[in-house]
């Protein structure tokens, strides 16, 4: 009666329920966010994206300052993290002795698991004083004529502090994906170049990197996704002022930081809350798009390995 066939169907049924409930929670969350941001979308339209002023008492809401802050932190963090990640990935895969490779790989993966608030605290304790006492005075003395490098307040907090710490947070993702992509380059392809009398550097430049490039793009995009949404570390470091940052050393604000700081007050006024939920919607849309693009690239390159390890099953 209760034979294997039925048992199988039962398992399938139960598992489907699990899967469906996860999917529906996600869809409900999206629906709720759309629902609550609707009043602000209607009232402010596209001007929400380019108005600079964020003034809850006057009910003037424009996201430009947060968009600019988010963009700058993300861009700078990638700019700092990418060269180092490439270096680390290439070193681990191509030059590191085998017994050290395992140890370094574990250390880098552990770095990825450190909670972001810990990174934030570390940034406040080390990066901020360093910027305030060494870097900012130096730039103030030598580069004060360049607007983008102008030091306005010399407090250490600001765009640069946040970007440096976020760079450390995305470094493990990008470097371990760089390493994995290089690892998946077929040995025989590299041998072909070596046999022609190529140096190891030639091989990396002309064979390994072109092979691994798509995977590395995927890693960069995942790093981008993490940088865009990073919250706690940024709250602690960016200075939290709704201005469009004009310099590397300016204070600023990001979408995620303003939500973390003010959403509890915002719920008092429906339109204020709605404007903040619209910020969340923008963030959600950006990170979703970026993750989908990144994963697609990675799947093509490392045959879905990444996806599986993330979601526990094909």
């Amino acid at each position, binding site marked *: 009666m209760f034979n294997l066939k039925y048992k199988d169907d039962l398992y399938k049924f139960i598992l489907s329920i699990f899967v469906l409930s996860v999917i529906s929670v996600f869809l409900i969350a999206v629906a709720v966010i759309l629902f609550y941001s609707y009043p602000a979308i209607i009232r402010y339209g596209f001007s929400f994206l380019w108005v600079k002023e964020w003034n809850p008492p006057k009910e003037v809401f424009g996201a430009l300052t947060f968009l600019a802050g988010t963009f700058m932190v993300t861009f700078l963090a990638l700019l700092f993290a990418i060269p180092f990640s490439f270096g680390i990935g290439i070193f681990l895969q191509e030059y590191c002795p085998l017994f050290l490779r395992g140890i370094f790989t574990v250390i880098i993966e552990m770095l990825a698991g450190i909670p972001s608030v810990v990174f934030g605290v570390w940034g406040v304790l080390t990066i901020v004083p360093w910027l305030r006492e060494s870097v900012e005075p130096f730039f103030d003395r030598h580069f004060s004529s360049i607007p983008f490098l102008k030091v306005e307040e010399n407090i250490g907090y600001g765009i640069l502090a946040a970007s440096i710490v976020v760079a450390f947070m995305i470094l493990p993702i990008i470097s371990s994906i760089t390493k994995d992509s290089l690892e998946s380059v077929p040995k*025989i392809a590299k041998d*072909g170049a070596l*046999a*022609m*009398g190529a140096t190891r550097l030639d091989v990396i430049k002309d064979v390994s990197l072109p092979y691994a490039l798509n995977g590395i793009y995927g890693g960069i995009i995942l790093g981008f996704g993490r940088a865009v949404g990073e919250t706690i570390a940024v709250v602690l470091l960016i200075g939290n002022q709704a201005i469009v940052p004009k310099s590397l050393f300016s204070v600023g604000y990001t979408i995620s930081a303003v939500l973390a700081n003010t959403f509890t007050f915002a719920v008092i006024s429906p339109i204020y809350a709605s404007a903040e939920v619209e910020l969340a919607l923008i963030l959600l849309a950006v990170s979703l798009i970026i993750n989908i693009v990144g994963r697609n690239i990675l799947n093509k390159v490392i045959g879905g390995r990444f996806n599986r390890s993330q979601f526990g099953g094909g």
Partner: protein
Amino acid sequence: MAEQDEIKVNVKNLNFYYGNYHLLKNINLYFKKNSVCTLLGPSGCGKSTFLRTLNRMNDYTEGAKLTGEVLIDGKNIYDKSVDVVELRRNIGMVFQSPNPFPKSIFDNIAFGLKIHGIKNREFIAERVEKCLRYAGLYDEVKDKLHKSAFSLSGGQQQRLCIARAIATNPSILLMDEPTAYLDPASASIILDLITTFKKYYTIIIVSHNIQQAGRISDYSGFFLDGELIEFDEAGNFFTRPKDKRTENFITSRY
């Protein structure tokens, strides 16, 4: 024994280990200038590994260890003073499966010339065309030289790799089953090419095809479990093998 100055590659007491696994056991043989030598033997007997000892491709293999000597033009290539990169520039190699670079068809062949420091564009273009013709590939690819090499079929890729290996004019050509991926027509082009090319090169080929080997060889060697069982002129090797095991193999009993 051949005259000393006719010998291009001389292998003396060569032993090769993968970790504790003693794969190649005391190999002694030589390859004469402008000759074609085929190496035969069942799968896993160490033919590819042996071929790779001749241009030190096992250098980066984890746990690989080697004793003995490989003399090329009288000089031991395992000597400390030898520059491996320099050594390999003089030796072309074709692998068991096609391994084009992630580049255009043109750049695959130009790659060797470029890393050898040749910059003259006209010379490179001429050389690319010539090598593609030698490998019997030119007519098939002349309109898409700047397309990715991965857009070619497996057999075309292998011929591209052969063209690539001869582009830099090496004096030794190592080929690991160069025709395994080819249809009979293109295999035949390659076999003819090999026969023509021994004028310029010393050619060493691993083969699984006894008939093909018989057609092109001047010398032949038979490996079994990492030992060189027999090595002789092709005439003797294929018609009057001295060892029973060689005879069994060439009459296809392995």
